[in-house]
């Protein structure tokens, strides 16, 4: 679920760069305020690799297949660090795998970064009291939100040459195919946090 080059108008791509640039700068300034900003770098680096490689994990949803996003996981595990980590991961995916365009890097950063930060916010608010529920909502909600942002961008940037009706039907099918992913990513976050709580409670992120 990455916007490739040549799909959205140029203004959209520029606005995407501006918005995700501001968001990344804001996230980094929040990271800088932490007592030890470097402390989270090892975790962020390793999770960036996981995020980068996850886009190759295709889940077959006949007749199509969808790939993992891990936006919610990045948010819960990294907090504000999720935004720069996602931008780096997306850049590497674009230049190495051709997943997503280079011109649309900013928009893709918004599509995946914004849900990650909101998942982090939700985890901070509810993670201590209801860890499993909060993890499920953060993981699943991030995918649902990313789908919503993606759909909004595509639909508002449809060129005149394209038949809007056909495209709308295609997008509905696309959203339907991603419903299992919404559930799957929630389960991934719940499972990972459960394992961490049991094996190494010190690694569990706290809100």
């Amino acid at each position: 679920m990455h916007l490739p080059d040549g799909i959205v108008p140029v203004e959209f791509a520029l606005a995407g760069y501006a918005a995700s640039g501001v968001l990344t700068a804001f996230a980094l300034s929040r990271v800088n305020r932490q007592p030890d900003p470097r402390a989270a770098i090892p975790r962020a680096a390793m999770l960036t690799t996981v995020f980068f490689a996850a886009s190759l994990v295709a889940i077959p949803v006949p007749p199509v297949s969808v790939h993992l996003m891990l936006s919610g996981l990045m948010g819960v595990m990294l907090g504000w660090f999720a935004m720069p980590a996602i931008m780096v991961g997306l850049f590497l995916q674009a230049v190495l795998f051709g997943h997503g365009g280079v011109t649309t890097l900013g928009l893709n950063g918004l599509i995946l970064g914004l849900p990650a930060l909101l998942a982090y916010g939700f985890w901070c608010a509810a993670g201590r009291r209801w860890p499993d529920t909060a993890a499920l909502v953060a993981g699943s909600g991030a995918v649902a939100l990313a789908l919503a942002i993606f759909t909004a961008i595509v639909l508002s940037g449809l060129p005149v040459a394209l038949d809007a009706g056909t495209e709308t039907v295609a997008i509905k099918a696309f959203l339907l195919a991603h419903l299992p992913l919404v559930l799957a990513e929630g389960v991934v976050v719940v499972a990972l946090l459960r394992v961490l709580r049991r094996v190494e409670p010190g690694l569990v992120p706290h809100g």
Partner: protein
Amino acid sequence: MSRHGNLVGNSLAGVALCVAAGICAPQAAFSHAALMTAESAQAIRLQAQYDTGAPMAHAQVIIYAPDTPSDVWGRGITDRDGRFDFIPDDIAGRWSVQVRQAGHGVMAHVDISAGAPVIMATSPQDTWLQRAVMIALVAWGALGTALFALRKKGRPDASA
């Protein structure tokens, strides 16, 4: 001429026949003869697929001619295998064909000149080995970053 060319030629002939029949039908009573010409033409066949290997079935196709690249020359829909055929006009230059569906899409170019058309599609898909190497390199970079940050945190390295 290839089999496709013959098929296209036959279908063109069919279209010409229909048009001719349509024009001539009301005048059949006057015993006018129907004429038909047929010629073979070179068609471009494209196939669009996702990087998972799944075809882009029933996706929208938009074609731009080289002389008016901002105007749409033609539209169409791919078949269930992601294939689409079209016969370009006799306009030399780079034709652009975009296939898109649900926010995903790909652009291919066809250079038409006096010789045979040159189709410039997107690069072929990476093999799993190439992907594994890329992932390993990124993981190596991440590991280096992680160890660097840990060292900077105050743990002296062995050379210190």
